[in-house]
């Protein structure tokens, strides 16, 4: 069990690319499948939130999901770690089906890290305790071991000196970086980001995006819901556009931004790129 925590890497070494600018690596879509969603349907009561969603994410792929408010972006990624339950279709994470038994859910959640728009740090615990709780309780690590790992990730997100502060004493950008470190401490195979910069003051957006970019360079498999199109262009292997619960269009960022195929995509991009 513990060996999973030994290395900084995430079982994937190709990302050690020295060139920061050229993140868009050769196509990974042929690699092992980490997430497979097939014909997923999700209803909230009578509201149809996800309609026939099909999505395959390979190891090391970086996906950006965008789309208008209420289009189901959060719902989609929350179905992956079963914060929401889909009603039909199939979701598999690293070969484990989501939604069949609680045993599977625990397994999946331990492998999937999630970062929220509102940080959701635990306010009554210090930064360090925020980071060590799950590794201790879920992975069964000894406190010392969990702390060593936590400090490594706090250094990684460049705030080791805040380890003994409480979340309320940090800026929004710092809190979000702690939230990223907290998720990484579980050594997840996949990271989900739900608008991680939307609640931040503009001057703090960059520090969080930089952290995410560096994570991408290390080869982390990630799905990011974000409207930061600069980040999408630079980091994403694939951009997905959702509207009204459907995946309307997807493509490599170059194509997606230069030649959007659907009218809905064009309208949306027009709105977010020109303001």
């Amino acid at each position: 069990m513990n060996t999973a925590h030994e290395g900084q890497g995430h079982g994937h070494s190709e990302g050690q690319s020295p060139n920061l600018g050229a993140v868009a690596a050769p196509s990974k879509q042929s690699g092992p499948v980490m997430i497979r969603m097939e014909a997923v349907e999700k209803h909230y009561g009578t509201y149809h939130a996800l309609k026939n969603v099909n999505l395959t994410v390979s190891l090391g792929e970086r996906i950006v999901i965008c789309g208008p408010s209420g289009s189901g972006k959060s719902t989609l990624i929350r179905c992956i770690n079963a914060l929401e339950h889909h009603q039909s279709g199939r979701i598999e994470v690293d070969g484990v089906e989501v939604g069949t038994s609680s045993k599977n859910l625990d397994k999946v959640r331990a492998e999937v890290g999630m970062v929220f728009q509102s940080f959701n740090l635990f306010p009554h615990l210090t930064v360090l305790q925020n980071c060590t709780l799950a590794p201790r309780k879920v992975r069964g690590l000894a406190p010392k071991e969990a702390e060593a790992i936590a400090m490594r990730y706090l250094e990684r997100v460049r705030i080791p000196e805040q380890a003994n502060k409480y979340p309320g004493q940090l800026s929004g950008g710092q809190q979000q970086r702690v939230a990223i470190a907290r998720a990484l401490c579980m050594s997840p195979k996949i990271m989900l980001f739900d608008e991680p910069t939307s609640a931040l003051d503009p001057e703090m957006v960059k520090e969080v995006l930089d952290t995410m970019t560096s994570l991408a360079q290390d080869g982390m498999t990630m799905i990011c819901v974000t409207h930061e199109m600069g980040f999408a262009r630079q980091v994403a292997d694939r951009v997905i556009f959702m509207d009204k619960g459907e995946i309307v269009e997807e493509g490599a960022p170059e194509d997606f931004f230069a030649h959007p195929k659907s009218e809905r995509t064009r309208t949306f991009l027009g709105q977010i790129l020109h303001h």
Partner: protein
Amino acid sequence: MIRQFTSAELLFLISSVRWTLLLSAIAFVGGATGGLLVAFARTSTWPWLRATAAGYIQIFQGTPLLMQLFLVFFGATFLGLNIDPLAAAAIGLTLNGAAFLGEIWRGCIQAIPKGQWEASTALGLHYFTRMKDIILPQAAKIAVAPTVGFLVLLVKSTSLASIIGFVELTRAGQIVNNATFRPFLVFGVVAVIYFILCWPLSLYSRHLEKKFGTVSR
């Protein structure tokens, strides 16, 4: 025949306070234990469990405490069990306290932002750990003031146990009054003793409320 209200009578009243306190303590510990279970049930993801707990709360909040004590006391007798008044009162107050504390604590648990649940769930923490390490420590802060407030209510409620024959402070007052026929004096003293017990608790509750901010319901 008629006795005077002397220091002996006063001492008798004061010494009966321990029974009031004992009953309060038992009922509080019992009510708190039950209340925690009721609060967990009320915030459960299982609809039938939520409904059961809601029904329980409705029943105990919707009927007089005195009737609940009668039902426990006479119900036990009806079933052929020989129950002493202290046990009957303790059981009745525990069941009642579980409903009230359960409802108070449900509110405190639900006042914790949903994001705390989501983040701890997403980290793979189990229900027990989520409750113990994330939700309850935060909920406890907003729960202390209303809980101490409930304790004040509970101390006063124990006076009803006098009616099923448990000799606590109120019952002791009745006994002294039957011998002295000085009801105004006797029950005045009894009331003062209750006040001395409850007032510091009330103050403490108000202090805690200020310290932790008001309860969001």
